C-alpha cells in the first residue's frame, strides 16, 4: 500500500522565489490498484511521481510504502520514463538484466527471469538486439520488461507512451492492462491524456495547478474498455470539465 500524507514540494526558481510544485497532497493507493494521475503540464503530476520514486525529497509530509518511509530510489519502485532510457551499449537482454546484475542474482536465475519478462512484452526473439535496432514502441516494451524484471512493489510510469504514435499507443495500453491483470502490480501512471487515464485506471486522480488534487474518480467500467461507449464519454467529459474549470 502506498500512502502520500500531506506532502508538499517547492522548488526555487532562478530569482530565488519558492514555487510550489505540489501542495498538501493526500493520496492512498491500495495494493494492486491501477491509479492514473491526469492533469495539464505544470500541475505537479510528474513531481508527485518523482517523490514517490524517491528521486526528489518532499519539502513537507511523508510518503509510506507498506508503512515504511520512502527514502531514496529503490528497485521496489521502478520508473518507466517517457524518454527512451535503454542503455545503448547493452543488448535488450542485458538491459532487462541490469537491475538483476546489480542485485548479484546468479546467471541462471537472471536469464530465466529476463526470458520470462521479455516474452511477457512479446519481445522474446529480440534478446540479442541493440536498442538502436528497435522502434520506439519496442523500446518502451523493453523498458517495461526491465522495470518488471526487478519485481517492484509499485510500478511508476511517467507518460511512458507519450512519444508513440496513437496506434502503437493503443496497442501498448492493451498490453499493459493484460500484464497488470496477470502480474497483479500496483501501478501509478502519469499522463496528460484523459482517454488514456480512463482506459487504464481503476481510479483517476485529477490534478490542477498548483499541485493540488482536484478530484478522485473511480472508473467503474469493465475491461477492455470501449472508448465509444456512453459511460466512457461521460467520464471523459467529467474530467475535461474539471481540468477546464481551473
Amino acid at each position, binding site marked *: 500500500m502506498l500512502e502520500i500524507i500531506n506532502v508538499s514540494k517547492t522548488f526555487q526558481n532562478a530569482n530565488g522565489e519558492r514555487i510550489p510544485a505540489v501542495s498538501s497532497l493526500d493520496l492512498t493507493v491500495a495494493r494492486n490498484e491501477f491509479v492514473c494521475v491526469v492533469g495539464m503540464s505544470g500541475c505537479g503530476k510528474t513531481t508527485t511521481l518523482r517523490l514517490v520514486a524517491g528521486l526528489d525529497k518532499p519539502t513537507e509530509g511523508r510518503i509510506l510504502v507498506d508503512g515504511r518511509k520512502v527514502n531514496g530510489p*529503490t528497485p521496489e519502485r521502478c520508473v518507466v520514463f517517457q524518454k527512451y532510457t535503454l542503455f*545503448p*551499449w547493452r543488448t535488450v537482454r542485458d538491459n532487462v538484466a541490469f537491475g538483476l546484475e546489480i542485485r548479484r542474482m546468479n546467471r541462471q536465475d537472471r536469464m530465466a527471469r529476463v526470458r520470462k519478462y521479455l516474452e511477457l512484452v512479446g519481445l522474446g526473439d529480440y534478446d540479442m538486439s541493440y536498442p538502436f535496432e528497435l522502434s520506439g514502441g519496442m523500446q518502451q516494451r523493453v523498458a517495461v520488461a526491465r*522495470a518488471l524484471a526487478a519485481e517492484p512493489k509499485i510500478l511508476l510510469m511517467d507518460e511512458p507512451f507519450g512519444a508513440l504514435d496513437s496506434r502503437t499507443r493503443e496497442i501498448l495500453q492493451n498490453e499493459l492492462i493484460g500484464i497488470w491483470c496477470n502480474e497483479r502490480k500496483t501501478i501509478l501512471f502519469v499522463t496528460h491524456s484523459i482517454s488514456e487515464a480512463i482506459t487504464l485506471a481503476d481510479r483517476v486522480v485529477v490534478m490542477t495547478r498548483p499541485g493540488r488534487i482536484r478530484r478522485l474518480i473511480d472508473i467503474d467500467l469493465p475491461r477492455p474498455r470501449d472508448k465509444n461507449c456512453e459511460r466512457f464519454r461521460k467520464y471523459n467529459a467529467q474530467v475535461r470539465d474539471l481540468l477546464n474549470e481551473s
Partner: protein
Amino acid sequence: MRLILPLLLACAWEIVALYLNKPMILPRLESVVKVLLHPTQKVLITGSLAMHMCISVVRVLLGFFLAASVAIPLGIWMGHCRLADKLFDSLIELLRPIPPLAWIPLILAWFGIKGIVDWAPQLSESILLSNIQYGTVVIIMIGAFFPVLLNTAQGVRSIPDEYIESARTLGARRFSLLFKVLIPASAPAILTGLRIGMGIGWMCLVAAEMMPGSSSGLGYLIWYAYEFLRTDVIVAGMIIIGFIGFLVDRGFRWLENRIIWRGRMS
C-alpha cells in the same frame, strides 16, 4: 586514392632536390629512404633509429598513462558532481591555455635532468628505462591531460538525467552506477579525449626531447642531426614521427569503432 597526394609531394620534392643539388638544404629522397631502411644501424654517433623510436614511444606511453589515470577519474567526478565541477573549473581553465612547452623552463628548474634511474639505479642496465627523464614525462603529461579531462567531463555531463535516474531506481549505487552507467555511457567521449590527448602528447614529446640534458629520442635525433647539417636524418626522423602519430590515431579510431556502442542517448 589516399596515396595520390603523398606520392605527388614525394615526386615534387625529388625534382626540387635534384634541381637544387644541395643536400644540406633539401636531401634527395633516396638518402632519406636509405636512413629509413636501416633502422637498426647507428645514426651519426648516437644510437640507432629504432632505439630512438622506442625511447620516444616509451616516454609518450608513460606520460600518457599517467595523464589518463588522473584525468579520467577527475573528469568523471567533475562531470557527475556539480560541486566538483565548480571547484575545479576555474583552476583548470586558468592552467589549460598555458602551452605545455611554456612549462619547460620551470620543469627543468624542478627536475633538472633527473630520471627514473636516479630513483632506481639498478635500471641503468636498460637503455630504454635509463633514458626516461621526469621532465620529459611531465611535459607529455601536461599536454595529454587537458583533452582527456575535458572530453571525459563533457561525456559524463551529457548523459541525460533519465538514464542515471532509471539506473538508480533499478538499484544502482555508487560503484554500480560508475561502472555500469557513467563509464560505458561516456566511453565514446573518453576515447575521443584519449585520441586527442595522445596526439598532443606525441607533439609535446619531440619538443621536450629538444630540452637541454636530453640525449636520446626522435626529437633529440633531429636536433642533433641539425648540428651536422644531416638533413636526410632530420627528414627521416620527421617522417617516423608523423607515421607513428598516424598509426596511433588509426589505432584509436579502430578501437572507437570496435568497442563503442551504436545509436545515441536522447
